[in-house]
């Protein structure tokens, strides 16, 4: 089985600061892989490199057998990598439904003229977008009643779900989730965990950053551990839990982060 995403010796530095060095690992189709590590370990930087928000200083990102370095972010999204952000980035003034509809952008075609003339094809496409958006809102567990509400007015937990729905709208093959359970209570975290597995069962591959250990241990097939911009361990959750290096780096240095 060939990997869906392969990171080959990724390095990233900002000025003189090294954020990532020599990161290599891969994600296989259908897997849920967790990225853990203390705050500042470079996890979000890795996501930003994968989604081309900025280019790696070294190494290459191979997605589905092709190097995607040098592509602009929207093209990476089009290739099939979707993401959410650590500090939820919704289009706050748009409605909940419109947020998901925006996510559908790269799978639809109607240009300005067709949009204004409302040709038959365009109307059909819009209907499709709307229907798909409703399905996705349903999937992530957002009540249909809130679809006309401004996204910024949703409670925090719902905003996180909405962001996942928006990412799913682009039909990604790989979904990057940046702390999907941050700021959630135990019950909500459980729901998110269930949602992640549900999404995987639909055929998606997931790479997620998470501080909540219970979620990582339950949901992930494999875990990659970062510290100071380097990968210090990789393996199934049960092995990671026992790894003395991980325990020291992770629990020893950042207890605060671990229970965050």
């Amino acid at each position, binding site marked *: 089985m060939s990997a869906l995403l392969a990171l080959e010796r990724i390095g990233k530095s900002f000025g003189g600061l090294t954020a990532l060095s020599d990161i290599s690992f891969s994600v296989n189709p259908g897997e849920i892989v967790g990225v853990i590590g203390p705050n500042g370990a470079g996890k979000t930087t890795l996501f930003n490199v994968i*989604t081309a*928000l900025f280019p790696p200083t070294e190494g290459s990102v191979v997605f589905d057998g092709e190097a995607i370095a040098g592509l*602009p*972010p*929207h*093209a990476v*999204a*089009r290739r099939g990598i*979707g*993401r959410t*952000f650590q500090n939820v*980035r*919704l*289009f*706050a*003034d*748009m409605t909940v439904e*419109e947020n998901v*509809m*925006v*996510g559908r*952008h*790269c*799978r*639809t075609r*109607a*240009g*300005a003229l*067709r*949009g*204004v003339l*409302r040709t038959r094809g*365009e109307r059909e*496409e*819009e209907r499709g*977008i709307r229907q798909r958006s409703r399905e996705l809102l349903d999937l992530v567990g957002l009540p249909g009643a809130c679809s006309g509400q401004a996204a910024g007015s949703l409670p925090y937990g719902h905003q996180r779900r909405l962001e996942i729905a*928006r*990412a799913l*709208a*682009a039909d990604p093959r790989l979904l990057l989730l940046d702390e999907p359970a941050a700021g959630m209570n135990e019950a909500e975290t459980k729901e998110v965990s269930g949602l992640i597995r549900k999404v995987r069962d639909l055929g998606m591959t997931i790479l997620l950053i998470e501080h909540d250990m219970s979620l990582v241990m339950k949901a992930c097939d494999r875990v990659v551990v970062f510290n100071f911009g380097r990968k210090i361990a990789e393996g199934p959750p049960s092995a990671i839990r026992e790894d003395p290096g991980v325990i020291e780096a992770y629990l020893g240095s950042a207890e605060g982060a671990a229970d965050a």
Partner: protein
Amino acid sequence: MEWINPYHLQVASFVLINVILGTSIYVTLSTGQLSLGNAGFMSIGAYAAALLATKYALPIPVGVAAGALLAGAAGALVGIPSLRLSGVYLAIATLGFGEVIRAVAINWESLTGGAVGIAAIPQMGRVVLAGARDLGFSPASLGLKPNQFISLTVFLILLVAAVLTVAFFLRLGRSRVGRAYAAIRLDERAAEASGIPVTYYKVLAFSQGAMVSGLAGALYAHATSFISPADFTYHRAVEILVFAVFGGSGHILGPAFGAAFLTVVPEALRAISHYRYILYGVLVVLVVIYRPQGVIDPPLLRRMRGDRAAEAA
């Protein structure tokens, strides 16, 4: 038909041209870009239309379309810098562009008539009247004096143009492209990550805004039959901006309202008109501080619609 007052119609015509101009700045703003070059694009449309009509005797609709398209093309060219510029830099660069265009208009005398400008541009009302007379029609049969007929014709043509322009962007706003514009304005990075080619849409919006400015300019030329570089100064660009800031740039009806309100009120209240621009200045500062989204914003429109729905129920 005494109530048809050419002066009122003329004011109304300027309102309509300003509504189109307000729309032009709205379109670029709807992707979060501020253009201070719309007076420049307006002059491209105006000069192109005027020259095609006076030097090549082309029919007015052809000249107007050509003027708008040319301005749109110039917009695409100038819009490319928006690939790398943002915020205040783009605003200043477009301001500079407008001034360069004006300098060219003043100095390329053989083509543009220099500082004097171009006179005797076919006035659309007169052209329609002449055409109608050729067909044996007399405005008197409608009970209209010729000058009433001319003003009315200009007004109606501009009304159609303004309504079509606003309707175009109203519909665009509710389409896939409109959602992409709004997404870019609200969060460029999230828009990118959602698969929206940000650069493409920014240039598209910029070019559309320029095209609409050019359309307004071309119509202006054929409504007033006289243009000169003084019509397209920095002050015009700022006036267009004021329409959008005052009226609100969150919804297309905002700039349209701003243009209409700020054109009509000074005309209606002569006492004010002396202090018109001073008031503009005060208004802008007050609006930016106390109602940064402008007078009209989507929640207000929703409330108004809600009230109407509630009354109907």
